[in-house]
């Protein structure tokens, strides 16, 4: 019933010249998404990855279990001195992420271009 979460990683460079690791998600972000969300993040080399950009532009459904996975990622990133940013959330999920306080620990942007320009 839930659509499978797909994730893939891409390396980009911001206009300011900073390396950025982009995690692109597709499908639902729910309790079944642990491997796709946390697993993909945990496979990144912590020693070299400093900025992680989450792409939600192809995600239609995020529930509280999925938000909890994002928070777990933010906790691990904070402990590793990494910065996390996100873009592509719908206006509704931008509101939800703001309501639960995620924006204090992850910058939200409308588009990839806006996010990269700020890094």
């Amino acid at each position, binding site marked *: 019933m839930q659509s499978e979460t797909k994730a893939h990683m891409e390396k980009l460079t911001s206009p300011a010249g900073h390396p950025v690791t982009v995690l692109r998600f597709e499908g639902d972000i729910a309790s079944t998404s642990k491997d796709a969300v946390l697993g993909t993040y945990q496979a990144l080399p912590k020693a070299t990855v400093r900025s992680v950009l989450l792409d939600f532009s192809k995600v239609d459904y995020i529930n509280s279990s999925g938000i909890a996975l994002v928070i*777990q990622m933010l906790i691990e990133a904070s402990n590793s001195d990494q910065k996390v940013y996100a873009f592509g959330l719908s*206006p509704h999920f931008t509101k939800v992420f703001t309501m639960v306080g995620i924006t204090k620990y992850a910058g939200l942007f409308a588009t990839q271009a806006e996010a990269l320009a700020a890094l």
Partner: protein
Amino acid sequence: MPSRLGYEKVAMSTAAAVAKLMGFREDRVEDLKTAVAEACINAMEHGNRLNEGLSVGVVLSAGQHALEVKVIDDGKGLKELPPKPDMDRKMHGEEDPRGMGMFLIQALVDEAEWVAGANGKSSYVRLVIRLDAEAE
């Protein structure tokens, strides 16, 4: 619905279809979708403890000015509402990263009421979104 995660999307889509027919704005429909999905997930996980032999009931009642959604499970219901989630405490490992469902429900609809069923069964959450909130 069976108490199987993922089926909350059936209730969510049905409630959204009714709300659209009633004339709710798109952003309010999105609020309702999340609230209904979270209510169903709570009913499956906490009320019915993911026992697929137990059903979750969803009743939509479209009134002239409001849409009421009741989500019914076979649990004993809540003794008290959990505290509002605290992102700082979650980030510092002092609070479970989960546990935001009820907060989201309360924040996204105009009324939310949790009612414990008699004899420890048929507990329900009742959600209401009102058309007159559209002008806010």
